[in-house]
């Protein structure tokens, strides 16, 4: 099992969700986060006072999938979240040791 975690531009969230549903992805966790990468930040000007905003708002999505589905999920996210401009984000893929469904106690693949 793999955990695919992606940091994307906030307005791309719906595109990503729509791309994942047909693959059979059953669940998705979304968080609003702030951070910086190569994009650094942006400059805001209020009455001549310039502020450099270091941490830009992004959306983090996390989706746990069977290992054989991971590549397709990564590709789908990559395609859906792509704008070609700096700040599109990153995808991280991690191994998952165990999964437990709280309601039934099912484990691993059954619980996904």
């Amino acid at each position, binding site marked *: 099992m793999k955990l695919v975690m992606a940091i994307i531009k906030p307005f791309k969230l719906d595109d990503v969700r729509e791309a994942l549903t047909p693959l059979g992805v059953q669940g998705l966790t979304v968080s609003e986060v702030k951070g910086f990468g190569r994009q650094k930040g942006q400059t*805001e*000007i*209020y*009455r*001549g*006072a310039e*502020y*450099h*905003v270091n941490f830009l708002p992004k959306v983090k999505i996390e989706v746990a999938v069977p290992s054989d589905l991971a590549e397709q999920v990564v590709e789908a996210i990559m395609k859906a979240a792509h704008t070609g401009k700096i700040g599109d984000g990153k995808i991280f893929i991690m191994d998952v040791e165990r999964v437990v469904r709280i309601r039934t106690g099912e484990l691993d693949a059954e619980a996904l």
Partner: protein
Amino acid sequence: MTGPSMQHNKSPRRLVRALPFVLPMLALSAPAFAADAPKIDTGNTAWMLTSTALVLMMTIPGLALFYAGMVRKKNVLATLMQSFAICCLVTIVWCVVGYSLAFTTGNAYVGDLSQFMLKGFAKTWNNDFLLGGTVDQTIPESVYMMFQMTFAIITPALICGAFADRMKFSAMCIFMVLWSIIVYSPIAHWVWSTTGWAGSLGVLDFAGGTVVHINAGVAGLMCALVLGKRVGYGHDNMHPYNVGYAMIGASLLWVGWFGFNAGSAVAANGRAGMAMTATQIATAAAALGWMFAEWMTKGKPSLLGIVSGAVAGLVAITPASGFVLPGPSIIIGVVAGVGCYFFSTTVKNFFGYDDSLDCWGVHGIGGIIGALLTGVFAFGPLYGGAGGSAHQLLIQCAGVGATLAWSGGMSFVLLKIIDMTIGLRITRDEEVEGMDITLHGEQIV
């Protein structure tokens, strides 16, 4: 000219027009009543009741939202609180002594205590009244007093822009009460009462360029200098909580300003209409002036920029409305929009004072621009005077200079006294945590 120069404006025609209504009333009313009753003009009174409500709306919620939108999230409620509390405090001060010190006869510098606690109202509440015992008004004194009260409220509330994010609430309350009595009432008396020296000298200030805006502006500058900069000024990110609030606040100010300026005719007449016209035109011109100046120098036209420009235009046309024609209104607006932009950005940064929300940069500078240009562009027939001239410009300079000196000097002294006794400024930790939670026990989540 919320005050005395109304005399230029009094025309016999008003009485003639009123006669058909007056005569039947005389016939019907009891003899003892007849001498008093007829002179109140219902049209004028209705407009002044309306104007009073409009000007109060400028402070709560207009100015409160305008300022609160520009401070950081942790200080939004405290900033709203300042305007609201000042509204309540000054209402009481104005009732007890403020109105009396400003608008009774007294001497050339300050009124007397003959209207202490508004005690005269018990007898005169249903009469027209003689301002300063000489200038006949066509509205009840209660309405005149209330209209003036809303000006007395907004003026100290404007000062809050200069010390945003860092003044103790207790110190602010004491400062505002003393400032209202020692600074505002005398200056209102100079310019608008029948006996004040500035009005007698011929200083033209239709709705408060000197009394309200230069007065608040220079007091704000003193606050910024005495209190010092906010913690982190110049390097921390101090981006505004919600520029949308500031836009709503500025829009309420704009609408309310029709009461402020057109109401200062103290009548529903042609001059009120001209004041309203000039106000609208100058405001739009100033908003565009600021917007284009910012666009050219910083690359983007900002919402905060265009609304700041509108306020600058409202300020600058305040002394001039009622004296100028539409053409000069555009000039006054553009000069104010570009001038205030320059002062609130370049000049402020050059000198390094932290006039946080540009009380001096917008109200002080805008007020001076408006007061001086009134001396240039005044149109004689509009007020039965001589019109703009080099001589009038000099008289305007005297009004501006005296206001800067008295307000600046007395504000400085008051601030120093409060600083030495109870202290002006919140602690560094309180400032970092934010005034909402540390001073008021509330916060926006």
